[in-house]
């Protein structure tokens, strides 16, 4: 191969690689990205049945029920407008508490959110950004009371 042609072929190959990456990524992202919904979104029917998603909100006070097997829990996630029932089998994270924020990964199944993973707020400095606003409002309310 002549050096000039070689350079052309290399440039073409590089462009093809970048294009391939973009196309593959677009194809992959189309149905594999998990959207973040609140209970209000779920109530409005935006969360498709069976599709991977994240659900975020506050664990409703007094709603956590342990099942007889000792490792399954059911609780309600609320955002002030709506409530969603969540079922989870596993060890809940350390900072999972009634009345505090939670983000769960999983899917909707017949009106119940089946969670695979529960991410709770870690401490005030390590917080899922999705919960940032809620926490800020909470903080503002506390300051006003003072």
């Amino acid at each position, binding site marked *: 191969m002549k050096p000039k042609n070689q350079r052309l072929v290399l440039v073409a190959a590089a462009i093809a690689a970048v294009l391939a990456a973009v196309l593959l*990524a677009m194809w992959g992202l189309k149905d594999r990205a998990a959207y973040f919904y609140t209970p209000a979104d779920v109530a409005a029917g935006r969360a498709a049945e069976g599709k991977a998603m994240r659900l975020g909100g506050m664990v409703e006070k007094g709603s956590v029920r342990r099942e007889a097997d000792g490792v399954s829990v059911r609780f309600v996630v609320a955002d002030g407008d709506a409530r969603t029932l969540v079922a989870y089998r596993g060890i809940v994270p*350390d900072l999972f508490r009634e009345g505090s924020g939670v983000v769960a990964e999983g899917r909707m199944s017949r009106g119940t959110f089946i969670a695979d993973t529960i991410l709770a707020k870690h*401490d005030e400095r390590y917080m899922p*950004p999705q919960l940032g606003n809620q926490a800020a409002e909470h903080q503002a309310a506390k300051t006003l009371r003072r």
Partner: protein
Amino acid sequence: MIAEAGLAALWLAAALSLLQLPLTVGHLRGWFDGARTVRSVAIAQGGLTLAAFAMLLLVFARTDLSVALVATNSHSAKPFIYKLAGTWGNHEGSMLLWVMVLALAGALLAIGSRRLSQHTLVAALGAQGALALGFYAFLLFASNPFARLDPAPLEGRGLNPLLQDPGLAFHPPTLYLGYVGLSVAFSLAVGALLTGDVDRAIGRAMRPWVLGAWVLLTLGITAGSYWAYYELGWGGWWFWDPVENASLMPWLAATALLHSVTVLAARGALRAWTMMLAMIAFSMSMVGTFLVRSGILTSVHTFAIDPSRGTFLLALLGIYVGAAFALFALRTGKLKEGAPFELVSRESALVVNNLLLTVILGIVFFGTLYPLFVEALSGEKLSVGPPYFNAVAGPLALLLAALVAVGPLLSWRRETRPVFKKLAIPALLAATALVVSLFAAPQIGWLPRFGLTVAAGLAVASWLPLIRTNPLRTPLATWGMALAHFGVAVAIAGMATDSAFTRERLAAVRPGETLSVGPWLVRLQGLAPAIGPNWTAIEAELRATRGVGVLILKPQTRFFTDPPTETNEAAIATMFGGQLYTVVGKPDGEGRWQLRLWWKPFVTLIWLGGGLIALGGLLALAGRAWRAVRRERRSRPGQSWTRKGYS
């Protein structure tokens, strides 16, 4: 006083990096000979940042609570080692570490590169100084680690317990050395493009830096993966978390660069290509730093949410990447043509390697940034996780691993021998693995199945380049390559067996009851309190048996008081055939305790493979260094004791 001395050293270093710019321009324009001054300035800058970092270490060691950073991130009751490690367990401290490594790399470049042309070296040092300047500004104006707090609080706020782990002492510095080691490749590429000397010499100057940075990145990622595995207690070793991806992207780019810089150094081909990759590699380091340090992502790695810092970092990223790529666009047409090669040759194989790595990098890049784009454009929040990355990047990674078996067997420039005959045995092994897995484990997914297939073939094929060579005369670099490629096979085997054959058990049991997981019977003996330097814990005693032999495991739930946090400490038993991974959860109020058990056959191969890859890189680095030393000795007059045939 200590904090003020550190701050002063930092300001001085920044002033020196500013001084470096006119000196470099003057030298390159031929107004004066600034080479020696530029080199001394770079060395002085390295010394000053080292001093600044030492001051910060001292402040943390003494728990000086009048320094804001110490007050918010440390605590007088913390074990001493974590007080020290806490220095870089926060935003400001870790950025200072970053800048220190950047300046030290510049100093080392100024001391060590004798074989590079004077002009290119000065230009590269100027580029390194320009990089440092931006990050000094970031430290001094947006994240001053030495800021005082008045009045000083009586006690500090403590360090996130997840970060109180021996892994933290080494994981960030290793990764940072890797990230920032790539800055030298970036600066050398900028320097070479400025002077137009893109040739084999620049390839040879760049290679040890790329190799060293790549070894450290490999180690850092491997260690980080193991840390997440045992510390988070989720039984997984890679979560495709954006922060993990932030370290994976520079690694992918560095891996591509490592292979193309070899072509440039050995053959003088792929000139513009290698310069481009060198720029991309460090750009990925900066993207990673931006993702982790700007606070737009959340994990244990993101320490603070402060939008002004994110904007500052984004501006720096835009300026450096934009300037570098503009320079590339201006100069690439003027570069000399690279040495030609045929379609079937080692050069072509390495081009294919580069292309596949680039595609994988692109996929990881888009997947990681997609949630940010979508949120910025439409306000909708989403996350991209394993389903995307595994399905889209996984098959390409396997294809690449399969080609790793072939590439090293090809000869430079033009292949004339029949190579595929040599691959008969590996191909046969791979086919056997595929057939056996189809019969013995028909239920496993196709990705782990092909993973096992490729691993079986590559494990043998990686050693083929050494066949029929004299093992003592084979360069260490070739041994290193074979070992690193073997490490890839080992790591893939571990990933495949882990995802195909892991057994999991989750249940609530009373003391005295037994659970089975895989071949193991695990009995909960009892629970007892335990106490550490700054935590208390509930410790479960588990008795695990498999046929003969007994193992005792003691997983804990720990309670930290500053800040108040609970963590699960997994207890892991490692043996030849795999790991038994146990976590104790919460009591259910009726005398039962939650237990989560995993039996993970051959999972340790993942990190063993990572270690072998790094070791291979280290061997290659040692071999090259040894050769350079010998060449140096030989070139000195009066010392002609070189033996023939060993060149």
